[in-house]
């Protein structure tokens, strides 16, 4: 177990190094000079811009800048934002909590909704409840997330006036963005749960469980679902990463503070340090979540062990 963990953590570090290199290269080959974009509307002269480039360290050779970035990153220093002139790490931390909150609520909602719908459809295979669930989930995976957000806004904020449309604070501001992220994810979870339940439902041990007199509910939820969940857990883990990405659109749509809105603004403003820091943060989260997913297999299914033998 320890060896497996160490090996995986080392691999994660490698991936992060690669992400850092890739993002750094990509962002630094963008046309459009960050220094010019920063001060152009102040009517700065070419000389002022040159001084600013020097200050921001943009005139150093590519490899020098990359080495400086990496060296800093290893100490938790991600540089300073061009736009805000404050440490990137602090800006990211300030924006992390709203996004994580949103992602956690969405993942929770999506899992509960999706697993129940999937189980309900699987045990009624071929009947109208199954058909309806699959139809709704097909629509769910085929909808652009931001459009679902717009439609929810239209119904609940504009027509019914139950919830704020933009920039709401607290729980009422959370409902629409969370639903926007959760519903398409729930659709996928429902489909996965259904298909993996269908595989499990034919197994002998379920017949044994029924034969020994367990109630149908115990058979389904304690025996079948537990074995069907392994596929679902993988997906929910991956989904958490996807939702962090999905927050990019949803936060912009609902004008909600968070990492997603931060990075969209930074991409447009060529605020390279912010984009780099964001990518590293997301990639690290994604890798660690994947690791956690792999470890959780062992909890659900004790036959899986990560020992050397």
């Amino acid at each position, binding site marked *: 177990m320890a060896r497996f963990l160490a090996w995986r953590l080392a691999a994660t570090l490698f991936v992060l190094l690669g992400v850092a290199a890739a993002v750094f290269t990509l*962002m630094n080959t963008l046309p459009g000079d960050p220094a010019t974009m920063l001060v152009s509307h102040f009517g700065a002269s070419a000389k002022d811009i040159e001084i600013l480039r020097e200050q921001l360290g943009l005139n150093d050779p590519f490899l020098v800048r990359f080495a400086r970035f990496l060296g800093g990153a290893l100490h938790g220093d991600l540089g300073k934002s061009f736009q805000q002139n404050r440490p990137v790490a602090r800006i990211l931390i300030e924006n992390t909590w709203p996004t994580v909150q949103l992602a956690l609520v969405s993942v929770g909602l999506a899992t509960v909704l999706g697993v129940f719908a999937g189980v309900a459809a699987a045990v009624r295979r071929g009947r109208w409840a199954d058909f309806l669930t699959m139809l709704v989930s097909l629509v769910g995976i085929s909808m652009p997330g*931001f459009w679902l957000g*717009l439609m929810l806004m239209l119904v609940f904020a504009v027509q019914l006036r139950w919830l704020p449309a933009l920039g709401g604070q607290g729980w009422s501001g959370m409902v629409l963005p969370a639903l926007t992220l959760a519903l398409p994810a729930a659709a996928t979870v429902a489909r996965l749960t259904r298909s993996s339940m269908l595989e499990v439902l034919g197994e002998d041990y379920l017949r044994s469980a029924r034969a020994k007199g367990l109630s149908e509910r115990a058979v389904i939820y304690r025996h079948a679902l537990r074995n069907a969940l392994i596929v679902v857990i993988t997906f929910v883990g991956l989904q958490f990463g*996807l939702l962090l990405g999905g927050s990019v659109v949803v936060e912009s749509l609902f004008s909600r503070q968070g990492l997603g809105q931060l990075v969209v603004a930074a991409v447009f403003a060529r605020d390279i340090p912010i984009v780099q820091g964001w990518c590293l943060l997301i*990639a690290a989260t*994604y890798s660690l979540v994947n690791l956690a997913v792999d470890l959780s297999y062992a909890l659900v299914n004790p036959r899986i062990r990560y020992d050397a033998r």
Partner: protein
Amino acid sequence: MPGSGASDPSPPRALAHPGLRRFLRHRGAVTGSVLLLALIGMALAAPWLAPYDPILQDQRASLRAPDPAHLLGTDVFGRDIFSRVIWGGRQSLRVGFLAVIVGGLAGSALGLLAGYYRGLTGTVILRLTDLLLALPGILLALTIVAATGPSLENLIVAVGISSMPAYVRVLNGAVLDVSTRTFIEASRASGAADLRVLGRHVVPNILAPVIVLGTLGLGNALLIAATLSFLGLGAQPPTPEWGAMLSQGREFIFGYWWIATFPGVAILLAAVGANLLGEGMRDLLDPRLRV
């Protein structure tokens, strides 16, 4: 089976090809392809179907709710939404299909190479794929488009690249599987060059997963492209495109519901069609494939 036809009242004998017959019996695949073909037909016939010019502005007709003259209403510039949805299909569908082709070809080629040359080449390709997977696809596409400038062509490339990892992974696995078979060994032993082995023996055996991934990926490509366009990184005004039309819809969400509704319905229908067809193809060609 010719013998079992006696009690089976259905398919006409003319459709003898067993693959086509199985396809036509798959309800999802048929529904999906009918939907997609209808939308493609609509986009191609835009000059004859659209009642109004999709670009010409008419301030007197600004922000009209749906009525008999403007079936789906008009936008702030007085342009007919119905006409713009029809014309917009040309851009949106073209971007989706081309992105699938770009990503599918590049990803498949890399997957083939990685599976066939398992040494350094394979390792490098697979590790680079891991990198692509560590970043959310939407941000990857966002950064690429931001780097190259917003245009439909760049959008196609960006969406294509972000869809590559699935092909690389699946094809790499498929090639590993195929290349241990005896007929490949025989072909190599008889002195065939690498390219010939790949082209003659490996490629035909892994076409099924590529077709399935491509059709399944079409829905996703349509959605990512619409999202980037919505953020202003795709079609530029006044070009009608479904995702871009929705960003105007967001501005006018208070009071003018039709602007934000109908282009989204069009995207939804296209993606439903693509997903139904894709799942049908998976059932028919490669039922074990998990993406």
